[in-house]
């Protein structure tokens, strides 16, 4: 791990000590080996404790963790012959959304996902995962392509939200999102979405009005960021974000209870960033399972079921 969150500091300190001991020239010494295994046990226990009771606000930080696997990591590990397809055919290419054709566990699919980037340069290139109208219009174009060739669509959601900018508004940010949602809902092929990090508002549901919505354990999905909510309802974006995160019910457990998502994918101990490969494999298995379950439905049924799911949503609230 390169980046530690505040609440991970005690674990980080232990791991630092472990690292120091390992680097000692006589680290083969049985006394040192014993100390090492003791420390490792302690670190794991602490990590387990920390992660077993993450608050909504801490989960928000985990969901945004810079080392958390992003869309390109998933594509790299899960999609063979990935062939990116660019552009909305109207204005521009939007690097905040990655999309293309590929083979997932043997079958052709269309993959669409927000990409946040991993360092300053790539973050700027991908605009921090905040798409503009052309991004959603590209997504729409690819979904329609999938529909025409009867290919399942996999979407990976990881965005703080749609980009708030003058140009984006001028080109119809709202309309682009609305049409993207509409296209999701009209598809006659399976649509499986995974909230892999941050599911930020309209920019997220634009890609996620799906047959099956999967969500990583420590991801978040919300109508507004905790900070945004805090600044409006609490009039305090700095100190109330924690309370807002709690109130918004944005964790995977909350959303599963509300029926907004279909399945929570457990993360490895210490979160996805602790063990990206394991996380990505688990996500792959969950997508495969979801697609398998949808494979018996014909196009019409896929569309009808998807609609019914959203029509029923929120009508009965668990008490």
């Amino acid at each position, binding site marked *: 791990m390169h980046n530690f969150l505040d609440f991970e500091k005690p674990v980080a300190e232990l791991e630092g000590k472990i690292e120091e001991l390992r680097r000692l020239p006589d680290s083969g010494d049985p006394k040192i080996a014993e100390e090492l295994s003791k420390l490792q046990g302690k670190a794991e226990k602490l990590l387990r404790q920390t992660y077993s009771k993450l608050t909504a606000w801490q989960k928000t930080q985990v969901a945004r963790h810079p080392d958390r696997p992003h869309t390109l990591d998933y594509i790299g590990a899960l999609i063979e012959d990935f062939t990116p397809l660019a552009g909305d055919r109207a204005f521009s290419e939007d690097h905040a959304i990655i999309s293309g054709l590929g083979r997932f566990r043997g079958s052709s699919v269309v993959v669409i996902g927000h990409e946040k980037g991993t360092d300053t340069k790539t973050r700027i290139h991908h605009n921090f995962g905040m798409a503009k109208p052309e991004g959603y219009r590209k997504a729409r174009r690819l979904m329609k392509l999938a529909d025409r060739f009867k290919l399942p669509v996999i979407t990976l959601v990881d965005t703080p*939200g*749609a*980009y*708030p*900018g*003058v140009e*984006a*508004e*001028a*080109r*119809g*940010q*709202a*309309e682009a*999102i*609305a*049409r993207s*949602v*509409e296209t*999701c*809902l*009209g598809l006659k092929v399976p649509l499986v979405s995974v909230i892999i990090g941050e599911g930020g*508002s*309209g920019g*997220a*549901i*634009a890609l996620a*009005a799906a047959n099956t919505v999967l969500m990583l354990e420590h991801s978040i*999905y*919300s*109508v*507004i960021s905790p900070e*945004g*909510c805090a600044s*409006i*309802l*609490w*009039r305090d974006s700095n100190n*109330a974000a924690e*309370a*807002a995160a709690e*109130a*918004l*019910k*944005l964790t995977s457990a909350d*959303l599963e209870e*509300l029926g*907004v998502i279909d399945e929570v994918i457990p993360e490895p101990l210490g979160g996805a960033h602790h063990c990206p490969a394991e996380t990505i494999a688990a996500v792959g298995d969950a997508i495969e399972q979801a697609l398998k379950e949808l494979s018996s439905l014909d196009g019409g049924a896929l569309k009808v079921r998807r*609609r019914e799911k*959203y*029509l029923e*949503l*929120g*009508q*009965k*609230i668990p008490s």
Partner: protein
Amino acid sequence: MNWLKNLVRPKLRELVGRQKGTAGNLWRDCPECEGMIFHSDLEKDHWVCRFCGHHMRLEAGKRLVMLFDEDAYQTVELDAVPTDPLKFRDRRKYTERMKEAQNRTGETDALIVAHGKMGGFNVVIAALDFSFMGGSMGVAVGQGLLTAARLAVVQDASLIVVPSSGGARMQEGILSLMQMARTTIAVEEVREAGLPYIVVLADPTTGGVTASFAMLGDIAIAEPGAIIGFAGARVIEQTIREKLPEGFQRAEYLLDHGMIDMVVHRHELRDTLIRVIGLLRNTVPAADVASIPAAAETPAANPAPSEDHPAEDRPTE
């Protein structure tokens, strides 16, 4: 208007002896030109300033009276939905905010749905009321739109939706976001029935409302000067750290950018809707339908609605 403002008004103030903004006030200031308008004239003009043409926000109920043929409509009782699904509480409880809005407006939520005749045509009109928690969209609004859509299908009616909303209702969290999908399904049902779906974008239409049913109209009409957009102006300013262009997110700006079909003065709205429905459905309106009388003087609207909505009711992106 300055002579009026500077000379006449103070005297009138003395004469009338009432403070601006109090109930039962005979006068009202136009938030745009500050012209003083008799309340009764304002009602007659459907809340369009007779001096500068500024379109003030119109209550949803008054909107229905203005659009339907005289006495030819009924409001629909909407389904009860689970209230406060998240047990949301910020500095105040959501249930308290709701009760307050309900008491103030006499409505159960922000959407009013009515069906009836307009120019003799069957129409269903669903209008959002900005005075009810900023016209924000939660489960009730989503459900109301579905009801409106299904009513339109059953009655072979056109669906007219008049949004005026800050967006999603934060206090219903993710369930408010899900209404973007549910209202889109409502629109689809009308479309699949081959019926017109017309949106009249009123000030303001922003956030998740714009990014769903409000931008999916077969025909998109906006009222002059209405703010229409996805992200709030303040959020954009904070992001780009520069001044926004003149007229940004106004109806006329959207028209220039190809996002809507037309900007229509409120006094011509009813006639325009009747004409469009007649053309789309290839039929003619009833001959005996009188058009509403235009106000004595209707200069071009001045695009600048007031910023008078409470921030707490301002929902999200």
